[in-house]
């Protein structure tokens, strides 16, 4: 069941990313990046077992942000790439700020949903604080490494995979390591980091055909 949901999330994100670029050009990708940054943030609060291994369910949507940035690197100029990175950062900072405000509002004690929403986000205060920084750092580093590898290898596959191998390792270490440190044992934390990293690599490989397909789309100015 969970495996299927994980795969469906990946398929939906892949199609949405592709069609955003196909029909709306780089503006569509900007919209997608902002949307995915926020949805990746929300879903990173949920952990579920995929093939008996606990992992973050936000991985398919989170990785799609990086794929969208790779498309911008391949198809657009440097300014467009940094606009995408800044947009992801601004969106996640805005959402983190609003979540912090949401947490500190005193809920009505008679309303269970109000207490639940406070609980979900309050227990992961560290994750709320660190997500925008990690996302911005990872995206900026990805842009740097992707460009570096692109100059040397001229292959999208190699650039995307090698960038992912390096950047997602650091990203997972910091995001999961800091975001979840106080709410699980160190053994569980190490397992979560390793499994999340493995799933990120797998999903990145699955996204490669989407990267190639999107790269073949003619530039559209909406």
């Amino acid at each position, binding site marked *: 069941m969970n495996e299927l949901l994980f795969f469906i999330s990946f398929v939906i994100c892949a199609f949405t990313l592709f069609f955003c670029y196909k029909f709306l050009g780089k503006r569509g990708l900007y919209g997608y990046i902002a949307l995915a940054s*926020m949805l990746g943030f929300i879903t990173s609060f*949920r952990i579920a077992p995929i093939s008996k291994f606990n992992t973050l369910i936000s991985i398919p949507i989170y990785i799609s942000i990086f794929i969208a940035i790779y498309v911008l690197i391949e198809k657009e100029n440097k300014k467009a790439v940094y606009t995408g990175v800044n947009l992801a950062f601004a969106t996640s900072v805005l*959402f983190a700020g609003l979540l912090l405000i*949401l947490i500190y509002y005193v809920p009505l004690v008679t309303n269970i949903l109000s207490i639940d929403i406070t609980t979900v986000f309050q*227990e992961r205060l560290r994750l709320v604080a660190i997500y925008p920084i990690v996302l911005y750092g990872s995206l900026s580093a990805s842009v740097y490494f992707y460009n570096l590898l692109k100059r040397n290898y001229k292959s999208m596959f190699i650039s995307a995979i090698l960038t992912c191998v390096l950047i997602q390792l650091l990203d997972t270490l910091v995001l999961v390591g800091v975001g979840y440190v106080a709410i699980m044992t160190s053994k569980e934390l190490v397992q979560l980091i390793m499994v999340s990293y493995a799933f990120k690599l797998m999903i990145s490989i699955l996204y490669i055909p989407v990267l190639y397909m999107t790269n073949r789309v003619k530039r559209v100015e909406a």
Partner: protein
Amino acid sequence: MNELLLIVEIIVIFVFLLYFCKQFRELGLIIWMILMSIISNILCLKIVNIFGFDISLGFVPYVSIFIAFNIYIQRCGIKNLYKIITCVILSLIFSYFIIYLSSLYLSGMLNINNNLSYTKLFEIDTRLVISSLISLAISLYLNGQIYYIVRKVKNKMWLSNLLSIIVVQFLDTILFILIYFLGNLPIIDIALMMVIRYTFKLIIGIAATGIIYKGNRLLR
């Protein structure tokens, strides 16, 4: 405490709106509308007491959607009205679907309490989805038309904003609350909820007139 947080929320939202406007121009305003439509749907799950009234959060981001839209129309007119409304509604459907999928995952033993709270929180409420989508689509369309017509006739930003906010927020509040709550709550509670929600939205909408002037200057 809650009143103070409301002021902080208003400041944060309008500062960020101006930042999006300055940094990402017209596209930033459209992205803002998309983001805020999703955020307001998440925040509205929490009910708090402000100035002695019980009210669900999310009305500040919701009003900011219309402020962003008014800045956009002031600058670009309504030639892209349908495209923008379609983009906002499709993005909202996409995000509902992704969040709904995330609530369907079966929980493991790791961090079980938090996972159960998350699932309960984001289980889809079909009535909420339908009421949000319908009221938002109709309100955006009416807002665009009213703002544009008043701008054409009088060419005063404050008047266009004032009239569009008064009319559209009134219809939006009635539409949303009737579709979502009718049959679940007594009529008197529904009427009271409408009055409170409309009053809060009206105050914020009118107070944000200065943001439209500032946003418009930033886009020049």
